[in-house]
């Protein structure tokens, strides 16, 4: 049995890979310039011509594309903006971004060929994590306009797996179906994987002794937080593997292979991933934190060149993993978002870093990071937890958690407060565990100086 979905590409030398990427980049630029006037104008302004692309370094001459530019184009030229390379009649499906940030979602169209490609990318991920035709795959997913696991569903059908579509079901019904149908693979967000495990406990079902062998995670950075992942693996008695993609690209971009190297391999024969310094826009080297910028070759309907994802990552060489792939790795997965950092009394707080500590305590069922203002001037932060454990242990966990959170944040006081069980919101898709109620006054976005 093949270990790789596409052995030719997944194990090619870095030199051959760069040559492939350069050629595909030239084709993509030619296609974009010919078919997308909005993009052609941007490229012309920057003096970029497909014929001039000779090495991957030439990519840096291509202007960045931001979400704001994409959104503005959508507002100027509704409903899709100037991003389409083919007429809407050639599309077979409409999707949107999840909209969890509260912004207007980006709308996207794809053709039949694009959908085959979307599934193809997921096939790299599933195959790489060890999913095979004999598997029974359950999707804890609502199948709406958010693209989410749609491509993953089709990928599993392409692989020949038996697919269990878990849309429009309660958590209890999902747990029962997983057990009754003998699912061997479960696809879910990390948050919802824990939610289902909690539900199983209430129902008296021991998932760890059940048939599930793999949990494929996506949609939140938590899939690569070691403590969260360990908790999921313990509660499900299964291997947990992270994946990450985005609607702007239509599908998955990176995946954790079955060797679980502590990060995700980039699908480099279909994308070029750059990591840049968020302030200087200059590339950063292996091992340095930066923002990922992606160029996608596969989705011809909406060519994407140098899209600023806002994801923070640390790139390392493929040799960090022993699987034999030559695709580089984002160590630790998506480390956070450029825009999700909170500054509390001068200390940077990343929700992911808080979660990494909180999830080490399996007594915590759910949590929320609460920011608020005291006396109109002072920012405070607290962590609210649901802690369904016995009295003595409860105080111990609360005290220890507060101390560790403070130590991890330069001594910032971060009390941990217990709230009634079931009072915090639960999520199926992307969890929003930061509740920011600080008073913002003065100009737009301005905060009172301390």
């Amino acid at each position: 049995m093949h270990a790789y979905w596409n052995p030719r590409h997944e194990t090619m030398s870095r030199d051959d890979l760069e040559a492939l990427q350069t050629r595909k980049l030239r084709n993509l630029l030619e296609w974009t310039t010919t078919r997308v006037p909005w993009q052609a104008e941007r490229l012309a302004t920057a003096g970029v011509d497909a014929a001039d692309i000779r090495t991957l370094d030439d990519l840096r001459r291509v202007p960045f594309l931001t979400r704001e530019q994409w959104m503005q184009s959508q507002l100027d030229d509704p409903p899709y903006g100037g991003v389409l390379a083919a007429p809407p009649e050639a599309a077979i499906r409409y999707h949107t971004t999840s909209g969890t940030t509260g912004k207007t979602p980006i709308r996207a169209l794809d053709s039949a060929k694009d959908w085959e490609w979307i599934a193809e990318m997921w096939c790299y991920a599933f195959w790489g994590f060890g999913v095979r035709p004999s598997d029974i795959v359950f999707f804890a997913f609502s199948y709406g306009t958010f693209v989410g696991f749609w491509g993953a569903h089709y990928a599993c059908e392409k692989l020949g797996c038996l697919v269990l579509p878990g849309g429009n079901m309660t958590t209890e019904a999902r747990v029962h179906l997983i057990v009754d149908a003998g699912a061997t693979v479960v696809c879910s967000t990390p948050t919802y994987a824990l939610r289902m495990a909690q539900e199983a406990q209430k129902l008296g079902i021991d998932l760890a002794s059940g048939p599930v062998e793999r949990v494929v995670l996506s949609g939140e950075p938590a899939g690569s937080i070691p403590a969260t992942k360990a908790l999921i693996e313990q509660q499900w008695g299964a291997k947990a593997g992270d994946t990450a993609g985005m609607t702007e690209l239509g599908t998955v971009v990176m995946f954790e292979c079955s060797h679980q190297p502590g990060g995700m391999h980039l699908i480099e024969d279909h994308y070029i991933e750059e990591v840049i310094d968020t302030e200087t826009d200059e590339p950063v080297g292996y091992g340095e934190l930066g923002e990922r910028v992606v160029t996608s070759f596969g989705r011809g309907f909406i060519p994407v060149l140098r899209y600023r994802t806002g994801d923070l990552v640390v790139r390392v060489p493929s040799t960090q993993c022993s699987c034999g792939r030559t695709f580089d790795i984002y160590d630790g997965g998506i480390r956070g978002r450029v825009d999700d950092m909170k500054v509390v009394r001068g200390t940077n707080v990343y929700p992911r870093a808080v979660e990494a500590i909180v999830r080490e305590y399996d007594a915590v069922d759910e949590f929320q990071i609460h920011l608020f203002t005291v006396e109109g001037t002072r920012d405070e932060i607290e962590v609210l937890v649901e802690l369904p454990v016995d009295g003595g242990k409860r105080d111990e966990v609360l005290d220890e958690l507060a101390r560790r959170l403070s130590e991890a944040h330069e001594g910032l006081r971060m009390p941990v407060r217990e709230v009634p069980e079931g009072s915090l919101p639960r999520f199926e898709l992307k969890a929003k565990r930061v509740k920011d109620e600080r008073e913002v006054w003065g100009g737009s976005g301005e905060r009172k100086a301390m």
Partner: protein
Amino acid sequence: MEHTSDLRAGERALVDCYERLAQVLREQRADLAPFEERNALKALAALWQVVNGLDLDPGQLYDLGV
């Protein structure tokens, strides 16, 4: 489409299928019944992935509605 020399026989046959299928849809589409046309288009979308994954340049298919 330029073929690379290191294709195995089975791979080369799949590339030939892709090219032949695209040609049929470009030149004889009007003769095809709906079931023939739509299934051929679906097959072409799948074969595009094979050619694309073989380090070849399969081009775009939007003119065919794929």
